[in-house]
């Protein structure tokens, strides 16, 4: 299935490029757009992995809703390009190597275990579209009913929190 590999590589590269661009761009709006790129390509990778439902809400919720919110706030606050202040040497000189170590360790671990983990099957074997809405819904409204319901509380406080913080001093 070479096409899958090619697709993965293409979207993977776009993904990483978007992420790097997020870091490189100085204006938040550019960063936000880069993030949208990352998310979109991730949605495609999800599709490669057979996660249709996830791919769909990735686009709808993330790229659609959340990123709009970001852009909205950026506009609202009229955020300009960030100035390169030197607030933290520690982040640069200890944090960056730290992350490199972190990433290196995880990468080594994954490569090391890659044989054991085997390959991701995409549409090859038994249940191609195992991540479709039907199955998800069954899970979500039975096994994961409680979390789902509890999410309502989460959203409630998110709304309330946003209202409380966002409204003018009364």
């Amino acid at each position, binding site marked *: *299935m070479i096409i*899958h590999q090619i697709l*993965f590589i293409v979207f993977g590269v776009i*993904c*990483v490029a978007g*992420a*790097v661009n*997020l*870091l490189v761009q100085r204006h*938040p709006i550019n*960063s936000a757009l880069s*993030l949208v790129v*990352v998310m979109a390509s*991730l949605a495609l*990778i*999800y599709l490669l992995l*057979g*996660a249709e439902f*996830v791919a769909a809400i*990735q686009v709808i919720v*993330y790229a659609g809703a*959340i990123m709009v*919110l*970001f852009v909205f*706030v*950026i506009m609202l606050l009229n955020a300009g390009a*960030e100035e*390169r*202040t030197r*607030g933290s040497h520690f982040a640069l000189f200890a944090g*960056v190597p730290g*992350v*490199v170590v*972190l*990433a290196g360790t995880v*990468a080594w671990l*994954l*490569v090391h275990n*890659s044989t054991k*983990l085997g*390959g*991701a*099957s*995409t549409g*090859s074997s038994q249940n191609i579209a*195992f*991540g479709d809405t039907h*199955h*998800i819904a069954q*899970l979500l409204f039975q*096994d*994961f009913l409680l979390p789902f319901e509890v999410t309502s509380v*989460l*959203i409630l406080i*998110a*709304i309330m*929190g*946003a209202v409380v*913080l*966002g409204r003018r001093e009364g």
Partner: protein
Amino acid sequence: MIPLSWYLILSAVLFSLGVFGFLLKRNIITIFMSIELMLNAVNLSFVAFANYWNSNPGKLPSGAAIVPLSGHVFVFFVMVVAAAEAAVGLAIIISVFRTRETLNVDQVNLLKL
């Protein structure tokens, strides 16, 4: 056949880039975006593992079958939470901006030592 580790490494790379973003970006909103990036990376891992368990069905010691889809469900919840966090987080950012008139984290350091 794409090795699972490819996905995972992609996920790890994205996660690390997210962390770098947090460490290196000055704009609070961008930093928040970096966090979103990290969450996305995590989601990728979930989906990849779900795929893995789907293709390598197994049983738990309790006798029940492994449900690969719970990875997807997890991603769903992560997104919900991310959305909620985004709402609150951006509200907090607005609140900070109101008091400090800046979005530069390096200048949000009243509390220290």
